[in-house]
């Protein structure tokens, strides 16, 4: 990315919506019961929500974030009962992504994810 001049980038935006603390979440509770029935120990809480993956073209990550935040406020979440978290990552072009992935696989696991 260094030295590259671009006015608009595409960002991979992850939006996670969850019921607010204190708002009943029967779906999460039922899933939690199911996991306990399967024998999973130590499970203290399950909250069920909704996940969106968006592609947003914007001048910079802050602009992409602001746009996603407004989308959450106005439609994706209901702020009366839900909270949301937004994660922004640049979408890499195919060549860079391949190069990064091969380098990552040569190095240690757990690096190089770019939201593709």
């Amino acid at each position, binding site marked *: 990315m260094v030295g590259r001049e671009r006015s608009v980038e595409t960002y991979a935006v992850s939006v996670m919506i969850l019921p607010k603390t204190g708002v*009943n979440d*029967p*779906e999460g509770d*039922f899933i939690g019961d199911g996991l306990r029935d399967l024998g999973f120990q130590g499970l203290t809480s399950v909250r069920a929500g909704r996940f969106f993956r968006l592609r947003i073209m914007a001048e910079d990550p802050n602009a992409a974030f602001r746009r996603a935040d407004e989308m959450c406020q106005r*439609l994706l979440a*209901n702020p*009366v*009962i839900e909270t949301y978290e937004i994660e922004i990552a640049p979408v890499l072009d195919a060549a860079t992504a391949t190069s990064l992935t091969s380098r990552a696989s040569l190095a240690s696991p757990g690096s190089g994810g770019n939201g593709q």
Partner: protein
Amino acid sequence: MIGVISFHGSNGDHDALDAMTQAVGVEARLVDSREQDLSRLDAVILPGGFSYGDHLRCGAIARFAPVMRPLAEFAARGGPVLGICNGFQILCEAGLLPGALRQNRTLRFHCFWTHVRVERAHTVWTGLLSQGDVAELPIAHGEGAYVADEATLAIMRRNRQVVACYSDASGNISHEHNPNGSLESIASVCNERGNVVGLMPHPERACDPLLGGTDGLKFLRSALLFTSGEQR
């Protein structure tokens, strides 16, 4: 003239229309969700039933229908607005009523008769009832658990915005007779002024003895008092 809004996917619009024209006996018509002028209507009903397939959240998409802007203006002028079931969900999503409606406690779709106790008779849609009256009305919803945060609930209590609560046939409110896990068994709320009411049970399906009861008539007829200027 009473308007019943048909959103794409609404399935309770004809029930509401028939209840108004046949049981209540007033002129009523369906209002397309793209209409821009509601100023000639005396009252507006947002009917029950899965507008826009309940995609994202119940009522979340209907809120953006073109008719919602003139509806907000109609409500702001004090016009009587009743949201039944999905209509209630839409009014909450649109910010015309406080709170929200979440999945039923049981995660099941509930379709049976319930009782509600009237908590506030002084609204446009409950003027023919008295506080403490018990009405038998059917519910049919998967997302009817009323939720509001404590600050909102405190304001609602102060303004007396809880219109009706689920109860037994004698008017006793208990966990057992709360069909969906609603906060404080709330089945119906109104805006501060009392002209916009959301009601989770279906009064329009309780207007004929053949259908099991007629308690819904009092709710629907109440608006006529208002529109004819006789509200007490």
